[in-house]
């Protein structure tokens, strides 16, 4: 295909997409249009909040000192002494290569992946719920949530990991043959090369493929490629840092790092929080915290309360429904199972919501099992992405019946986002203003 043909194809696709947008706008009711405007404001505002003065502060913040010098080491061809897989630092070294060894350079990849997450949320929402409205809702919720905003503004890996996991799920939803499974496995391997906890994406990805029934069971064996991808990435990293590049050296390196992490889990940290406090954002971390005289500049990881409270209420309501149906009088075990099935496959739950719940649970479960003293709120970020995708689908579904209620919900989400934007996007604030915004004391530094 010539470049002219590719350009023409893109032009046709863009024109067609624009026509669909204008047609959807024309057929929408005034209430739905108002909701769309709010969603648009969330997306535009979310992008601006992610980008604005991202290079401030120009020095290291939070855990950046653990990663940035090691990212620089790849450019100097010397050893990476960090205790995580290498790919995140390799991404960061690309930013440093483009912009220099400065805060703009080392935060560049987090920003790019942070914006990409919004787009992936749109595609995933649309793919799961088969409506562009669900995708738009999911993208807007990711855009207007401080957890995602703060991780797009800092040289840390969890935002990038989340983006790669969403990307992997997009491949899983799209897979129809072994080729799709291979692409999913490659992306899972890439995510795992950023942070080991990314490997748990294999569970929701495989479950999604099986439930959608588009790929053969045996093709899931291709997921064995995940460690191969990671080994390949790691060997490349070792080559760049002029370290021995044989499998025996890699094995010793990985073994030492695993032992180091096991040892680390026995230590304590003042920012430690238990997994069951994460969905209620009991103790979000302020990952960028600068003081200039009487002014404070914060990037708090607290999510948008309108969104996470809605997710939590839905989870609690679903749990109560399940328990009520399982324990209700009447009928034997079959009747109870039938009632449970009716609830799970009926609206508003249904297959897409169940699949996203599986993703949410699969990425949270490891931390509930390990239960160490060295776990932090940001471990919840990938899980939370699935929660917001699910919320996008549920709200889009609700809009068909209750457009005004959804308008109020989305408007409230926007208002809270505007209210909390200063402590997500590092605005210049005095301490009393910060304390007014970070209402619970556990949200404060």
């Amino acid at each position: 295909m010539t470049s002219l043909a590719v350009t023409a194809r893109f032009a046709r696709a863009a024109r067609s997409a624009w026509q669909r947008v204008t047609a959807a706008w024309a057929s929408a009711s005034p209430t739905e249009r108002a909701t769309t405007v709010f969603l648009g404001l969330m997306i535009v505002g979310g992008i601006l909040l992610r980008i604005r003065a991202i290079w401030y502060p120009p020095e290291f913040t939070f855990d950046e000192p653990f990663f940035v010098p090691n990212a620089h080491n790849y450019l100097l061809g010397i050893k990476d002494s960090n205790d995580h897989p290498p790919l995140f630092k390799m991404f960061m070294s690309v930013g440093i290569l483009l912009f220099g060894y400065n805060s703009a350079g080392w935060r560049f990849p987090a920003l790019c992946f942070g914006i990409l997450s919004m787009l992936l949320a749109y595609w995933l929402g649309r793919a799961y719920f088969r409506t562009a409205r669900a995708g738009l809702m999911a993208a807007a919720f990711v855009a207007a949530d401080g957890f995602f905003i703060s991780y797009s503004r800092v040289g840390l890996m969890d935002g990038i990991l989340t983006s790669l996991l969403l990307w992997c799920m997009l491949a899983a939803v799209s897979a129809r043959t072994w080729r799709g499974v291979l692409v999913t496995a490659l992306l899972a391997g890439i995510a795992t090369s950023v942070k080991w906890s990314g490997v748990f994406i294999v569970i929701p990805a495989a479950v999604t493929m099986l439930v959608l029934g588009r790929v053969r069971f045996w093709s899931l064996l291709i997921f064995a490629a995940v460690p191969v991808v990671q080994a390949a990435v790691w060997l490349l990293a070792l080559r760049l840092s002029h370290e021995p590049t044989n499998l025996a050296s890699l094995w010793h390196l990985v073994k030492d790092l695993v032992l180091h992490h096991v040892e680390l889990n026995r230590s304590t940290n003042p920012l430690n929080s238990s997994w069951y406090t994460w969905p209620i954002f009991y103790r979000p971390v302020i990952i960028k915290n600068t003081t200039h005289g009487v002014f404070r500049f914060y990037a708090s990881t607290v999510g948008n309360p309108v969104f996470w409270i809605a997710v939590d209420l839905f989870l609690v309501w679903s749990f109560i429904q399940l328990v009520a149906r399982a324990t209700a009088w009447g009928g034997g075990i079959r009747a109870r199972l039938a009632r449970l099935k009716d609830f799970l496959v009926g609206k508003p739950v249904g297959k897409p919501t169940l699949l996203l719940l599986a993703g949410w649970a699969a990425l949270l479960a490891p931390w509930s099992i390990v239960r160490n003293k060295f776990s932090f709120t940001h471990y919840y970020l990938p899980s939370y992405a699935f929660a917001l995708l699910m919320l996008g689908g549920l709200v889009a579904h609700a809009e068909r019946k209750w457009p005004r209620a959804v308008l109020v919900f989305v408007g409230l989400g926007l208002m809270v986002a505007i209210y909390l934007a200063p402590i997500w996007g590092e605005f210049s604030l005095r301490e009393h203003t910060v304390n007014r915004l970070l209402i619970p004391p556990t949200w404060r530094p």
Partner: protein
Amino acid sequence: MAPVEVVRYLPNEVDVPLRALLALFLIGFGVWVIFAWARYDKNAAQTEQGWHKGTRQLIELTLVREDHDRLACASDLTVEGLNCGYDAASRPRVPTPDEAHVLRPYCNVKNEVLLGAGLWDSPGMRGALPTERFTVVCNLDIVGVIKSVSTRWELNGKFDPTKQSLPVGTLTDCVIPQ
């Protein structure tokens, strides 16, 4: 106007993840344009944490008397009236700028490179200088950053282009600690 044919794009399983890759590159390009437009490089020095335009830093240098003639930089750029003693073609600048405005490269005790002017003209440096290597402490008032610059560290050495941008500033209140 003739109706436009609506093309429903039916992506295959490899196209969808590739589309995300294309999007990532486009986002990266967009961010690069925004960073360039926001002139990030004018506000953040790349060599040292916390050094940015408009700030004053206390720095410590170790020098020898001959560094006055040995250290030099070459660039056509002028920042707040400060410029290198040589142009980008490594020719001495004509007319010769006065001492207080000539930039020279220095490497401080933390091994960070900067371009400073006014050190040798500072009151604390006007007397007889030590014959051995000595330490000078100065205030560096950062006025900008230069990326297109070459530096020379020996009298007859050649100018090498720097790989990173360097903070530019005036060195004031220089003293040789006793």
